[in-house]
């Protein structure tokens, strides 16, 4: 372990944290991923809305696409044929990814809302104009950070020498990032923000499916309002999750040289896993103690 490797590792962790947060907020503004099922259902059960509705695909494939696209463009620009500076190459790559994201988002929004015309769901052009650029901006930040992490892991002049080519490693991190964003931050949007009119502290009752909040504090709720809310908790914790994964996974192989101390690196990983299992148990016990059983519960099994 040397100071340069440790510094790069810290930079990777920080970049991953930003990437995680922006990825989650991008999916919240666009209402991608699983909570989109409720937005899709809302118009059908009589709640027309001004929420952006794009479900291009699951988050992992779409983020893998953006990251790989940015990485391919960046590696071409960095190659001997063009010889562009790495920083600017990655910036141009991320821009191309953001443009692709914008095209997919717009066609997705128009297609989905047009297909719901029979439920009186409109296509709002002002929503399209204001939200698509916001989504693209978040996608740009995500793609830039993911490709930079991948570049740090693969650049020949830096200490970490990962064997995968830049686009493959960006693709892989893109899949992982999408999976994390879909698993963590989106729950805050789907279970809390979409159903804020119901009391805090319960999951969505299946009978209330599709009854999403369509009115804001003033006027009608838009998806940018949703991103504002999720930026307080869902986004940052998603960032923390991806940051922790990138940091912990690479930290093991930074403090222990995999060539000579591979078993120590694995042992450290196992220790981290055991600690996380213990921590989850503590979380579960504390939450059950704090919240207690549901008052409506009628059953034979006692607490």
């Amino acid at each position, binding site marked *: 372990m040397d100071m340069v490797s440790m510094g790069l590792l810290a930079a990777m962790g920080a970049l991953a944290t930003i990437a995680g947060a922006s990825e989650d907020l991008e999916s919240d503004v666009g209402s991608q991923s699983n909570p989109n099922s409720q937005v899709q259902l809302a118009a059908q059960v009589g709640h027309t809305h001004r929420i952006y509705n794009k479900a291009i695909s699951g988050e*992992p494939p779409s983020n893998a696409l953006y990251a790989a696209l940015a990485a391919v463009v960046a590696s071409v620009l960095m190659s001997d044929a063009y010889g562009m500076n790495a920083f600017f190459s990655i910036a141009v790559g991320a821009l191309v990814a953001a443009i692709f994201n914008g095209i997919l988002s717009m066609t997705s929004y128009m297609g989905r809302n047009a297909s719901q015309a029979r439920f009186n769901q409109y296509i709002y052009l002002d929503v399209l104009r204001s939200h698509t650029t916001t989504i693209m901006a978040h996608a740009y930040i995500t793609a830039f950070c993911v490709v930079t992490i991948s570049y740090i892991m693969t650049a020949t002049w830096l200490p970490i020498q990962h064997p995968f080519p830049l686009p493959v490693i960006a693709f892989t991190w893109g899949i*992982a990032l999408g999976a994390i964003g879909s698993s963590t931050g989106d729950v805050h949007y789907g279970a809390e923000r979409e159903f804020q009119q119901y009391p805090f502290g319960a999951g969505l009752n299946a009978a209330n499916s599709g009854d999403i909040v369509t009115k804001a504090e003033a006027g009608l709720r838009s998806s940018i309002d949703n991103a504002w809310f999720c930026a307080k908790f869902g986004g940052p914790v998603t960032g923390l999750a991806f940051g922790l994964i990138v940091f912990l996974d690479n930290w093991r192989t930074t403090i222990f040289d995999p060539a000579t101390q591979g078993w120590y690196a694995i042992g450290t990983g196992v220790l981290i896993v055991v600690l996380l299992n213990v921590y989850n148990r503590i979380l579960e016990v504390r939450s059950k103690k704090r919240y207690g059983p549901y008052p409506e519960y009628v059953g034979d*099994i006692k607490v």
Partner: protein
Amino acid sequence: MSTFDASTLIYVIQIVIGGLLVGIGVHFVPVGGAPAAMAQATGVGTGTVQLATGSGLTGLISAGLMMSVTDNILLIVLSGAVGAMIMMDVTMIVGNWVYIYGVGVPPVAAKVDYDPITKDPQPPYISPGTVGHGVPTVSFVSGTIGGLMGGAGGSLIYYALMNINGVSGLSAFFAIGIFVVNAVIASYNIQGTIEGFHDPKFKRIPRAVKACFIATLIIGIFAVLIHGGA
């Protein structure tokens, strides 16, 4: 003219074992699909394939780094398994943060009355109109096992392919492909949601083993041939 020697057979067997590990491992991963994203079902609020692939590929990154410095199969496979476990555990922990602090629901399993590991009663903590929420202890442990198997399986496939062609990018991409095929087959078997090894759906594993075996055997043979083996 190429010949079909013993080492080729070993590579195909390694790929098949890797595929089976992935297929079985996916059954351990607690996912609630779209309902879980609304705190309506126990498990992580995403798709089976998505989470399993996310963790398996994180493991592949660890395994790839390890394979660039060593040939020890055990080190490579375990490195992948540990990487996948870390990804899976951190995701489940942060998912639980969102359920507990963001939505205000305790983690609880709905398919059993008592947690098989901690013996805690479950039904009193299930909010009305839902089938559980969050990742309770039994699902967390199950998810960790799922990460281990998925990461190990992906790494084993990568190891076999790397021994054939020695090109890491190509091997990684083929490994990702074989991984996803098995994850999707397993996902059909559990129909999108499963709480972990205590879920009744877990008993469907033999069917997935058969399907994954056939699929991986075919892909394995072609992968070895395409990559220049035999």
